[in-house]
C-alpha cells in the first residue's frame, strides 16, 4: 500500500509554484465503535498566492485534513498515511521538533471559534506576541510592538490600548481579527483558515474576507479556505475542492465548479442554497438523507445512497465500484460526460435560477 502511494505521489505533477501538495492522504481514528475513516485518499495542491477552497458538509473531513497538515491530530488514536509535502518535505513523517518550527511560522491556522480558540487568561497582545518571540527570537518589547502593528493591520481601533485587553473584552469580529493577526504575525507562507467567518454576521464576514484578500496580495500567502458557505467561497477562492465522506468528489477552478458543476453532490449543494433573486414561493431542494457514517461508509461511490441519478448508470456500478477522481478539472462520478451535461441542463440549471 505504502509503495503504491509513494509512486502515485511521485507521478503526480507538482508545479513549480506548488507550495503544499497533499498526496493520497488517509486519516483514520480508532474509536470505541471501530475505525473512522475521516479522510480517505485525498490529494490536492496549494500554490503560493492562491486560495484553495474546500467545501463540504459537516463531518466530510475538511477540518481533519487541515489539522493533519499541521500535525494537530491526536497521535495516539490517529493513523495518517500518504504524503503531505511542504516545499518537498514530508510532514507526515517529520519529527515533532521540526513541526514545532513550522507551526505558526511557515504554516499558520485560523480557527473556527475565536472565543474558545483564544486563551481567556492572557492578553490579546501577549497571545499574538507569543509565536513571534518563539520563532524570531524577538524581545518582549519588539514582540509587543509587532503585536500592535499586526492589530493595526487587521483594523483594530486604538491598537496601543487594545493590545492589553483580554479576549473577553473584544467583540466576536474583533476576536476573529485578533486570531488572524496571531496567525499572520510571522508572515506565514501558508495560511489555513478553518471556517473563519462562520461565527460572524455578514457585515463583519465581508470585512474579514477583504482583509484576508488584502493580506494575501501583500504577502503572497497561499490560503486553504475551509467553509460550507458557497457564497463565501465564490468570493474568496481560486480553486475549489468539494469533499464528501472524507473524499474529494469534485475539483476545478471556482468558476468551473460553481458554473458547470459535474458531480451530483455539488448539484445538491448548489440547489439547496437560497438565492436572493429567486421566487419566494420556489422551494429549496435539499439533498435527501443524511451524511454517511464514516465508521462504515457505503460501498462504491459514497454518495450513491443519496444520489438521484444512480438509475442512469448501467448495472450496479454506483454501489460496487468507487469512482476515481482524475487530475485537474474532474468529478468522481460514473455518469458519462454527456449524461452529466444533459442532466445539468435539464434538471439542475432550472433550480438554480
Amino acid at each position, binding site marked *: 500500500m505504502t509503495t503504491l502511494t509513494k509512486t502515485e505521489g511521485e507521478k503526480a505533477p507538482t508545479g513549480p509554484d506548488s507550495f503544499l501538495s497533499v498526496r493520497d492522504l488517509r486519516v483514520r481514528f480508532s474509536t470505541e465503535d471501530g475505525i473512522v475513516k475521516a479522510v480517505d485518499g485525498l490529494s490536492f495542491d496549494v500554490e503560493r498566492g492562491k486560495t484553495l477552497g474546500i467545501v463540504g458538509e459537516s463531518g466530510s473531513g475538511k477540518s481533519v485534513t487541515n489539522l493533519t497538515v499541521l500535525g494537530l491530530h491526536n497521535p495516539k488514536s490517529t493513523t495518517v498515511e500518504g504524503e503531505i509535502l511542504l516545499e518537498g518535505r514530508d510532514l507526515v513523517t517529520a519529527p515533532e521538533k521540526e513541526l*514545532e518550527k513550522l*507551526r*505558526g511560522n511557515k504554516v499558520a491556522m485560523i480557527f473556527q*471559534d475565536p472565543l*474558545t*480558540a483564544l486563551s*481567556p*487568561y492572557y492578553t490579546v497582545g501577549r497571545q499574538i506576541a*507569543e509565536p513571534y518571540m*518563539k520563532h524570531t527570537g524577538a524581545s518582549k518589547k519588539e514582540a509587543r510592538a509587532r503585536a500592535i502593528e499586526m492589530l493595526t493591520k487587521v483594523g483594530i481601533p486604538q491598537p496601543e490600548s487594545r493590545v492589553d485587553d483580554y479576549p473577553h473584552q473584544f467583540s466576536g469580529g474583533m476576536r476573529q481579527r485578533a486570531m488572524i493577526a496571531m496567525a499572520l504575525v510571522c508572515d506565514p507562507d501558508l495560511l489555513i483558515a478553518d471556517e473563519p467567518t462562520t461565527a460572524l454576521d455578514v457585515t463583519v464576514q465581508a470585512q474579514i474576507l477583504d482583509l484576508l484578500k488584502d493580506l494575501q496580495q501583500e504577502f503572497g500567502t497561499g490560503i486553504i479556505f475551509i467553509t460550507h458557505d458557497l457564497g463565501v467561497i465564490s468570493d474568496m477562492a481560486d480553486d475549489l475542492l468539494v469533499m464528501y465522506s472524507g473524499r474529494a468528489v469534485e475539483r476545478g477552478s471556482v468558476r468551473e465548479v460553481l458554473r458547470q458543476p459535474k458531480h451530483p453532490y455539488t448539484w445538491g449543494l448548489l440547489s439547496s442554497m437560497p438565492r436572493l433573486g429567486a421566487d419566494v414561493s420556489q422551494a429549496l431542494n435539499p439533498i435527501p438523507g443524511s451524511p454517511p457514517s464514516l465508521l462504515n461508509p457505503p460501498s462504491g461511490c459514497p454518495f450513491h445512497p443519496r444520489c438521484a441519478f444512480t438509475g442512469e448508470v448501467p448495472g450496479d456500478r454506483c454501489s460496487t465500484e468507487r469512482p476515481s477522481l482524475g487530475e485537474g478539472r474532474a468529478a468522481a462520478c460514473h455518469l458519462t460526460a454527456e449524461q452529466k451535461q444533459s442532466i445539468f441542463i435539464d434538471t439542475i440549471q432550472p433550480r438554480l435560477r
Partner: protein
Amino acid sequence: MGRYVVRRLLQMIPVFIGATLLIFLMVNVMGDPIAGLCGERQCDPATAARLEQEFGLDEPVWQQYLTYMGNVFTGDFGTAFNGQEVTELMATAFPVTIRLTLIAILFEIVIGVTLGVVTGLRRGSPVDTGVLLLTLVVISVPTFVTGLLLQLLLGVKWGWIRPSVSSEAPFDELILPGLVLASVSLAYVTRLTRTSIAENRRSDYVRTAVAKGLPRHRVVVRHLLRNSLIPVVTFIGADIGFLMGGAIVTERIFNIHGVGYQLYQGILRQNTQTVVGFVTVLVLVFLVANLIVDLLYAVLDPRIRYA
C-alpha cells in the same frame, strides 16, 4: 476591588458572631465547666457555687457571651485549665501549627499538582492507573493508620526520623507529620488537577497554542495548567482552615504541641476558655482564607472582576 474587599470584610462580622455564639453555646450548655476544674472527683456543692460566682457562670448565658466577647476584643481570652493564659497557649501553639500547615500545603501543591498534571496528560496509561489507585488507598485509609504506621516504620524500626517531635518543633522534624497531614488532601488535589487537566487538554485554546508552534512544556505550563488551576486553588484555600484546626489526630500521634493538641486538651478537660478561644481564631482563619481564595480567582482569571 477595594470596595469588594471592604464588603467582604463587613460580611465576615455576622458570620464571625454567629460561629462564635454557636460554639460558646455548645460548650456552655452541653458541658459543665466547673466539673472540669475539679478534676476527676465530684465537686462539693459549696465549692461549685463559689466557683460559679467567681467565673460569672450564674449569670444568663447571653450575658456570659457578651462579657466573653468584650474580653476577646480587648485581647483577653481567659485562662486555661492549668492557669495559663489562653493567649499564651496560642502564642506557643499557633507558630507550630502554622509551620506544620505550611509544610502540608507545600506537599499538596508540589506533589499533588505535579502528579495531577502527569496523570492528566497520560490518562489511561499505567502511570495514571497506578497513581489513581494510590490516591484511592490514601483517601480510604484513615490518617491515624498512615500516621502510626509511618511513625512505627520510619521512626522506630528504621530510625530515620525521631518518632516524636520536640517541643520547639523545627521544620525538619515536621516533614513526616506534614506529609501525613497532607496525605488525604494531596490525593484529592491530584485527582482534581488530573480531571481538570484532562478536560482542558482537548480544548481549543490548547490546540491554538500548539498551532502557534510553542514547545510542549510551554503549552502545558503556560496555557493548560494555568487554566486548570482554579478548582485546585479553591480546594487548597478551603483546606488551609481544615489543616490548621483539624490536625488533632496528626498532632496527637507525633506529640506536636500545636493547635490540635491544645484543642484536644481543652475538650478533654472541659475547659471552655481554651476551646472557644481557639475556635474563635480558627473561624477567623477560615474567613480570611476564603477571602484570599476569592481574590486569587481574580488574579488567575481576568474575566472575574470584583466591583
